[in-house]
Structure formats: structure tokens, C-alpha cells
């Protein structure tokens, strides 16, 4: 375990968080933030190359989490890059003071630590702690502008999040109670790898109960309807890099936790099949978010609802299960992370250029800011499920595989997808096309991160490299 890249993945963020909290100066801290993210990312990539460590009582690297770690560190890196320019602008306009920026950067790394820890943990208790850590740091970041709205959003997030925390903990305790007679007292009954192995002998009723609490507890973080209420406001009022990370990563991490427990429950054949619950919540999220999209006036809140919609799709896919749907769900998670964070990068730029987040005041971007406008258009089309982007691939697989098995569900799914598509296109038309409105100053930062993400999403839609595909297949089989 000594040479393992796990250590830098966890320690670099923690260390830099401490350092960043101490250092003054925006330029230095921004660069340091990027540097730390680069290091973490490199360490994450090294996970692929170096032999994997044996799963311990606390940490684990397996097929399921490795790609999420890499994805997490990658988006963390691009978001840090984007954030450097973004925060610079915020300082110039006086929305953030240097003290808060220092705090922001420290929190950023702490949040990355929390998410990485959650992904790496092999212990359901540790996972709980890590996810709560990540949540609390994001709460603080959402409120960082200290405006009335931001505080309110943070407060809402905090309260709803706390209840979610409590429910998830109760679920965790229930899992322990179920495991304890089989695996014995103490830590072994909380180690995920052992839990999965022992699950067939657990009490099914306790597992059922545990799964309900975990689904609702972590589902609050995922933003599943009707537990989603914090999500749109938190996205809309926080700094845009955080919105990107929230949508792109934190939701994924929470969903990852749900997946882990789904595997656990699925391992006990007598327990309630977790599928229908997830399918139900997924569909409700998808369709509800689809409707909510139509009345949005705030750009970021709009895309926050779109995240809810996509979390619904993914939850649905995992609920359906089977190699095809699981594959599609995993792919969709990755594609959604990349695309949605790219969109937030674009939206953040646009909002800074135009000085507003209102749809009505951002128009005709392709005319006034071609690079930004077209990039955003690509992102929105991609998230709407248009080929040749990767989201299309996953949606194609989800819809076709579902329709062959349960047509009625697929029809609902398609209805939700089309609903959201209509809203996305409506907004795309007004954002990107038409005569420009508002400021036409050139954008401060070139949308490099946006195009980088889109390039990956595009490539994935056309060509998945063999190893990646094998990995996905493997995990899809694991998920059952």
C-alpha cells in the first residue's frame, strides 16, 4: 500500500487545503489550486498503470470506482482551471473579497478530498463521513457570496442535506445490524467487500429497510425528486465552478454510494429488488424535471434541473439493470459529468460577460461571442441527447434495451426525454441564436475547458476505446 497512488490522491487535496487556507493572494492560490488538482489527477491516472492495492478495511480500488476517481480528478482539474479565470473576474467586480477567495480555494481542495475519499472508501461508515464532508464544504461554498439568495440557498441545502445525512446514517446502521450477526462485531461488518460476500446470509427485511433509508439519504444528494429541492438553488446561487463540480461530481459520488448499496441488496436474493424503487424515482425525477425546465428564467437553475433529469435517467438505467442498461447507465454518468460541467463552464462565462444569469438578458451568443456560443450550443445539444455525442449512445442503449423488456416504461422514459429536449432546445434557441442582447465585450477566458470536455464527449460518442469498453462491460456485469 506504500507506493500506491491512493495516498497522493487523498493527501494532496488535504495538504493543499491546509496550505491554501494559510496563503494569501489570489494569483498564487489559484495557481496552487490548479497545481494540486494536476497532481491529484496524475496520481489518479497512475491508478491505471500501477498495480492495484489489496482492498483494506478502509480503502479500496476496484473496477467500479477507478473510473469515477479519474473522472473526479479530471473534472476537478478542469473546474480548477476554469475557476482560476472565473474567480479573477469575481475579484475584479468585487463580488468576492480575497479572504473569501482563500477560503474558497481551501474548501475546494477539501471538497475534492471528501469526494475522493468517498469514492475510495471500502467502509460504509467512512463513505458516509466522506460524503458528508463533501456536502458540508459545498454548503459553505454555495453561501460564499453571502447575498440574501446565496445564504438562503445554502441554508436550504444545509437543512435538507442534514436530514439526508441522518437518513443515510440510519441506513448505514441498519446495514451494520444486518451484517453483525453474520460477520461479527466491529469493523468487519462495515467493510464493503466483506459485506457483499456475506450479503446472501443477511436478514432480507433489514436490508430492505436499510436500502430505503440509504436510497432516500444519498438520493437527497443525488437530487432525486422529491428530495431535490436544495439542488436548483444551490446550483444557481453558488459560484459557477462549484455548480459545475456539484452537477458533474457530487451527484455522481452520491449515486455511486447508492450503487454500492444496490449491489449489496441485490446480492441477497430474498430481499426486495432495488430495481423498481430506482426505476420509479428515476422516472419521477426525469419527468418532473422535464416539466420544471419550461418555466425557468435563470440559466444556472435551468441546467440544475437538467442535472436532476439526467440523474433520473441514470437511476432509471441502473434500476432496469442487466448488462446493457448498466453499461448505459455508467456511460451516461461519465458523459453527463463531462457535458454538464462543460455547460456550466460556458454558462459561467456567458453570465460573467453579460453580467446576469437571466435567460431574457442573454441572447444571440453565437453572434456576439462565436466561440462561447457555439461551444455552449454543442454542450446543450449533447446533453439533450443528440449524436454524435456520448450521451446519445447511452440514451440509445437505455431506451432500446428498456423497450424490448418493458415497453410501457420505455414510453414514459421517451416522454420525459422529449419533454426535456423541448425545453433545452427552446432555451438553446434563445441563448445562442437571434439578435444579441446585452454586453458584447469579448469573453475573458477562452472556453478551453468547455471544448476539451466536448471533445472527449464527442470522441466517446463515436469511438469508445477497447479497454474503456471492457471496463464498462466488466462493471456492468458486476452491477448485475
Amino acid at each position, binding site marked *: 500500500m506504500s507506493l500506491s497512488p491512493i495516498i497522493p490522491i487523498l493527501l494532496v487535496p488535504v495538504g493543499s487545503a491546509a496550505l491554501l487556507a494559510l496563503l494569501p493572494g489570489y494569483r498564487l492560490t489559484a495557481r496552487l489550486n490548479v497545481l494540486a488538482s494536476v497532481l491529484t489527477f496524475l496520481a489518479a491516472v497512475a491508478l491505471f498503470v500501477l498495480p492495484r492495492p489489496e482492498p483494506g478495511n478502509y480503502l479500496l480500488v476496484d473496477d467500479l470506482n477507478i473510473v469515477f476517481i479519474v473522472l473526479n480528478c479530471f473534472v476537478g482539474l478542469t473546474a480548477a482551471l476554469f475557476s482560476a479565470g472565473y474567480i479573477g473576474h469575481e475579484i475584479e467586480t468585487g463580488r468576492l473579497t480575497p479572504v473569501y477567495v482563500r477560503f474558497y480555494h481551501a474548501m475546494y481542495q477539501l471538497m475534492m478530498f471528501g469526494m475522493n475519499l468517498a469514492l475510495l472508501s471500502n467502509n460504509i461508515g467512512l463513505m458516509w463521513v466522506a460524503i458528508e464532508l463533501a456536502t458540508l464544504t459545498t454548503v459553505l461554498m454555495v453561501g460564499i457570496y453571502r447575498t440574501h439568495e446565496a445564504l438562503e440557498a445554502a441554508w436550504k441545502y444545509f437543512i435538507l442535506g442534514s436530514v439526508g445525512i*441522518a437518513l443515510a446514517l*440510519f441506513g448505514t446502521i441498519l446495514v451494520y445490524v444486518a451484517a453483525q450477526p453474520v460477520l461479527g462485531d466491529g469493523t468487519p461488518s462495515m467493510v464493503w467487500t466483506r459485506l457483499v460476500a456475506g450479503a446472501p446470509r443477511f436478514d432480507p*427485511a433489514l436490508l430492505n429497510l436499510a436500502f430505503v433509508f440509504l436510497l432516500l439519504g444519498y438520493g437527497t444528494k443525488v437530487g432525486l425528486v422529491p428530495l431535490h429541492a436544495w439542488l436548483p438553488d444551490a446550483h444557481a446561487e453558488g459560484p459557477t465552478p462549484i455548480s459545475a463540480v456539484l452537477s458533474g461530481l457530487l451527484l455522481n459520488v452520491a449515486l455511486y454510494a447508492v450503487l454500492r448499496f444496490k449491489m449489496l441488496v441485490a446480492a441477497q436474493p430474498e430481499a426486495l429488488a432495488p430495481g423498481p424503487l430506482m426505476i420509479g424515482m428515476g422516472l419521477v425525477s426525469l419527468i418532473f424535471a422535464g416539466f420544471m425546465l419550461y418555466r425557468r428564467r435563470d440559466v444556472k437553475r435551468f441546467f440544475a434541473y437538467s442535472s436532476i433529469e439526467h440523474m433520473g435517467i441514470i437511476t432509471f438505467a441502473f434500476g432496469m439493470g442487466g448488462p446493457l442498461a448498466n453499461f448505459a447507465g455508467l456511460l451516461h454518468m461519465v458523459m453527463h459529468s463531462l457535458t454538464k460541467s462543460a455547460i456550466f463552464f460556458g454558462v459561467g462565462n456567458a453570465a460573467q460577460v453579460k453580467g446576469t444569469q437571466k435567460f431574457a438578458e442573454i441572447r444571440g451568443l453565437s453572434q456576439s461571442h462565436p466561440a462561447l456560443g457555439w461551444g455552449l450550443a454543442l454542450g446543450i445539444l449533447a446533453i439533450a441527447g443528440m449524436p454524435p455525442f456520448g450521451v446519445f449512445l447511452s440514451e440509445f442503449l437505455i431506451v432500446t434495451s428498456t423497450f424490448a423488456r418493458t415497453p410501457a416504461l420505455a414510453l414514459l422514459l421517451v416522454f420525459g426525454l422529449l419533454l426535456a429536449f423541448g425545453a433545452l432546445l427552446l432555451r438553446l434557441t434563445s441563448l445562442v441564436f437571434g439578435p444579441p442582447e446585452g454586453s458584447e465585450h469579448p469573453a475573458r477566458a477562452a472556453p478551453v475547458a468547455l471544448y476539451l470536455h466536448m471533445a472527449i464527449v464527442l470522441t466517446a460518442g463515436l469511438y469508445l476505446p477497447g479497454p474503456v469498453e471492457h471496463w464498462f462491460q466488466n462493471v456492468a456485469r458486476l452491477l448485475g
Partner: protein
Amino acid sequence: MERMAFDTAHLLAGGLVLVSFMMIYQDRLQALLNTFTLHAVVLSGAVAWQAWTQAAGHLYVTAAIALIFKAIIIPSALTRIVQRLGIHREVEQVVGTGLTMLTGMGLVALSIVLMLHVTSKATAFAREDLAFALSVVLLGLLMMVTRRNAVSQVVGFMSLENGLILAAAGARGMPLVVEISVAFSILVAFIVIGIFLFRIRERFDTVDVRALDSFRGERR
């Protein structure tokens, strides 16, 4: 001895549920705070008893935290807030007490029915005490939902959390219980500080939607 240990634990857990009902019944803030203090004391006793029967030393810490923090510090802090805001007499329920009580009984029944499904493979604790813990959790949630005032919602949240601690303490050999109780105490402290700092009196339940409308720009 085994029987006695079990019965006492059972009694304390049942007592916690009872106190939860008492809290739901209260319609004055000050009385609610007082009842909550009782809740915390009972919890502390239950945890301490578990510590003794399981011979788990760390649980005494949890019991102590429950006693000091929840039975003493938080209630007194909240009392100050209540008095400063001048709302100690507020009657602030959304639905009538009777209905709430009925719902609460339904929730307890639900918890028991759920636990009946648990097979005999699980320990007796799992079958019985978990039902109480679940009841306390649900009753806490019910309290959060049926009260308008931020302070009583905090109390609801804390009683919910007490249910968690009860469950965690009852789970034989569960690690991290102390850490969890500390973490939750910090969380609660944050909430209380939040209420204190932002003077959130009604923010939990802003009835006046126009106040939201003014900045959110979302409503037609």
C-alpha cells in the same frame, strides 16, 4: 442477567419513544425545550446502559456528550434565542395536536410492522429496539414537518438524531459511534449558530412567497 439487561434497554428505548410523543404534544416552545432535555437525558441513560451491558467504554463518551451537549448546552442556548426573539409562547403547529399524535401513532405502528418482517436470524435487539429507534427517527421527522418555527424544527432534528444514536449504540460493537455523535453535535451547533446569526425565525417556513419572488426571478 441477560434478560434483565435486555428489559432495561427495552424500557429506556420505549421511554424515549414516549418522550418523543410528549414533545409532539407540547405547543409552547419553552415547554418543548424542557421536554427535549428529558429526551436527551433518557437517551443518555439508554446509551450508558448499553455501554455497561456491552462493556463498550467508548459508549460512555457518547452518553456524556448526549447529556452535556444535548441536555444542557443546546437547550439553554435555544432558550436564550427563544427569549431574545420573544417567541417562547408561540403556538406554531401546522396541523392540530390530535392529528399529529394520531399520525405519530401510525408511524410507530409502521415501525413495528416493519420490524416484524425481520427474521429470527437477527438479534432480539434488531427486532425490538430498532423498532423504537425507527419510531423516534420518524417522530422527529414528523416534528420537523409539523412545526413552523425554526427552533422547534431544530428540536425535531435533534430528536431524530437521538433516534440514530439510540440505534447506533444498540448495534453491538458498532464502530464510529462516538465520532458520529460528535459529528452530529457539530452539525446541530452549526444549525443553532445559523439560527442565531441569521436571525432565522421564520425562514424555515416563509409563508410570504412574494419575499422569494423578489429575488429569484423565477416566478411568472
